[in-house]
């Protein structure tokens, strides 16, 4: 049987070891070890999470603050390695965890396009081909040779979003970033995501806006305190979630 899962998470645990007082230097480490003051506490951020995402699917992650949504996204995008469990990713990922990751604010917008592309693993040549589309989408025609330290946060966000979506990733990871920019740009972003979805891109979204999730997602995973509460069709899960919230 053909397996068209592009993302697979199997019994993923993520434990953070929280030293009650953080030891940052060798000197401190030696002193504390000698005094036997070294103690750790484990904090489980993701607790036995398993789910699959099929190729071309749009999946939303919902849950209250501290429910492990962002940690799960970071595990999917490879930033964090789970303490135990298995993660299988079969495609190129473009993470939009935080806008402007990998930007150097002293460089111009154009240089940053290459830098950011390189961060995501694309060569200068590939980025050059996409340059026009990126400029068009971000609407920064006149500012491409300005150092981005002079940009407004909205401009930076537009540039970052343009790069992340124009490189045609197989998987797009979006964390709470659709709230940036003006009303028109937000619409444009959603249109872009819709277009990518119809083009077969797999999208994983984290958002607190249930409306947005309902508009965009095929399926939803509801997390609470690191555990999966419910996985299912968007309508079902969102209804339940609203129910819980109103209670």
């Amino acid at each position, binding site marked *: 049987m053909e397996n068209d899962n592009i993302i697979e998470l199997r019994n993923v645990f993520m434990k*953070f*070891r929280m030293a009650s007082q953080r030891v*940052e*230097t*060798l*000197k401190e*480490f030696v002193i504390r070890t000698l005094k036997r003051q070294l103690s750790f506490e484990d904090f489980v951020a993701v607790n036995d999470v398993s789910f699959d995402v099929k190729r071309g699917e749009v999946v939303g992650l919902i849950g209250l603050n501290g429910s492990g949504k962002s940690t799960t996204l970071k595990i999917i*995008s*490879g*930033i*964090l*390695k789970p303490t135990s469990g298995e993660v299988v990713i079969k495609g190129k*990922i473009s*993470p939009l*965890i*935080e806008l402007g*990751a*990998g930007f*150097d604010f*002293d*460089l111009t917008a154009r*240089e940053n396009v*290459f*830098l950011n*592309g*390189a*961060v*995501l*693993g*694309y*060569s*200068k040549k590939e980025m050059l081909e996409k340059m026009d589309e990126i400029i068009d989408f971000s609407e920064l025609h006149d500012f491409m040779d300005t150092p981005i330290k002079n940009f407004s946060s909205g401009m930076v966000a537009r540039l970052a979003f343009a790069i992340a979506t124009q490189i045609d990733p197989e998987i797009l990871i979006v964390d709470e970033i659709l709230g940036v920019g003006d009303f028109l740009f937000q619409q444009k972003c959603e249109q872009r995501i819709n277009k990518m979805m119809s083009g077969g891109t797999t999208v994983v979204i984290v958002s607190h806006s249930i409306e947005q999730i309902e508009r965009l997602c095929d399926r939803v995973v509801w997390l609470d305190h690191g555990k999966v509460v419910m996985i299912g069709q968007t309508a079902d899960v969102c209804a339940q979630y609203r129910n819980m919230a109103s209670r």
Partner: protein
Amino acid sequence: MKKKIFVTVLLLFFVASLVFSVYYPSRDNISNIKNGLENKKYSIDELEFPGWYGEDGDYASMEDAQIIIKDVNTYVSSIKLSGNYTGKNSHVQIFYTTKQGEPFTPEKSKIVSWYSTGSRIYIDADIEALSLRIDLTEQRDDELSISNIELNDRTAVFSINSVAKWCVLPTILVGIVLFVAFYFRGIKPYLDKFKQYMPLVTNLVSRDLKVKYRRSVLGFLWSILNPLLMALVIHTVFSRLFRFDIQYFATYYLVGSLIFNFVVECTSNALGSVISASALIKKVYIPKYIFPFQKCVFALVNMLFGCVAVIVVMLIQGVPFHATMLLFFVPMCYAFVFAYGFGLVLAAATVFFRDIQHLYSVFTAVWMYLTPIIYPEEMLLSNGLGIIMKLNPMYYYTHYLRSVVMYGTLPSLDENIMCIVFALVMLIVGNIVFKKTQDKFILHI
């Protein structure tokens, strides 16, 4: 298409190094010297000229190497042979005559044998000699290279440099490893990933270069001027205040410091590379070794600027250029691998313990004084610190670069092996440490 070019270049490289290694030792000019020496009479005072042979940068194998010094006519308490020699079970035999017309006989001879690598052979002669013959014939299956012979502290500079037959072997080995790596399936995914992130490395390096030079008027020129000025200072200080018996001292210093500073720059930049990339590591997946690697590449670029400074100083001091200079990249490659491995360890350690930064700067200072950079190598040996020298990888890299650039000698197989062993061991250790700890980086940065 690219593959074909790569393979062709590699094959050409093999053939070239094979030809090189076969051709070089065969230039046997030793007989010329012998004749030249025997036909002329030299007093010890007359020996103070640069090279009986070797002025034109010629090399020869050591077979039948004899140095005859007539009209010594004095009491010889000791003979010092200094230079670079490596040898397994090698010995030097000193013949001497006391009467006019007396042939050299084994009865009137002294043998000194040794079983190690070093840079000075001390022969306790205690003879009244009319003429001397120094035979370097007895050494077997390895090579001997002596650039300096002293008789009772009066220096006669010889440039008898033998060439190790297998000196190019390591380069061939590296080529084969590359070749296999290129075709070996098992590591292909890693190589692919590495290749995928190469643009990031070049991007980060060019960013570092821009940041470094953007705010200075002379820009890239500083990378050349800085070592030049440093060499000037060192030259002034050491030719006036502390005098060492080193020919072309400024070049000696500059070549040594070039590769030493390269390693220090690599490691100390790599040390903080992961921490300073925290913004990126927290948000995007990037293979984390890219950061220390990129810092090493950056240092490599800076060192290449420094090479220009070395050439300038060599021209000013009139240091003869040798064909072996073209091999300057060999010790640099060794040092790069070593520095990268060490950088991995430091980068990983610094994530957990920030104060390693301060400890390391002390460490490098100590390291510099234990490496023969501003003083001659013999100084460590004669002070009983030879063991430190032999355990210090930087000694081998500085020595190697000086050999090929200044002295026109090719380091022996042993020396090459030492360089490779240090580099590979460091690389493996670095990779293990880094790999074991890299998943925890994000929790500490």
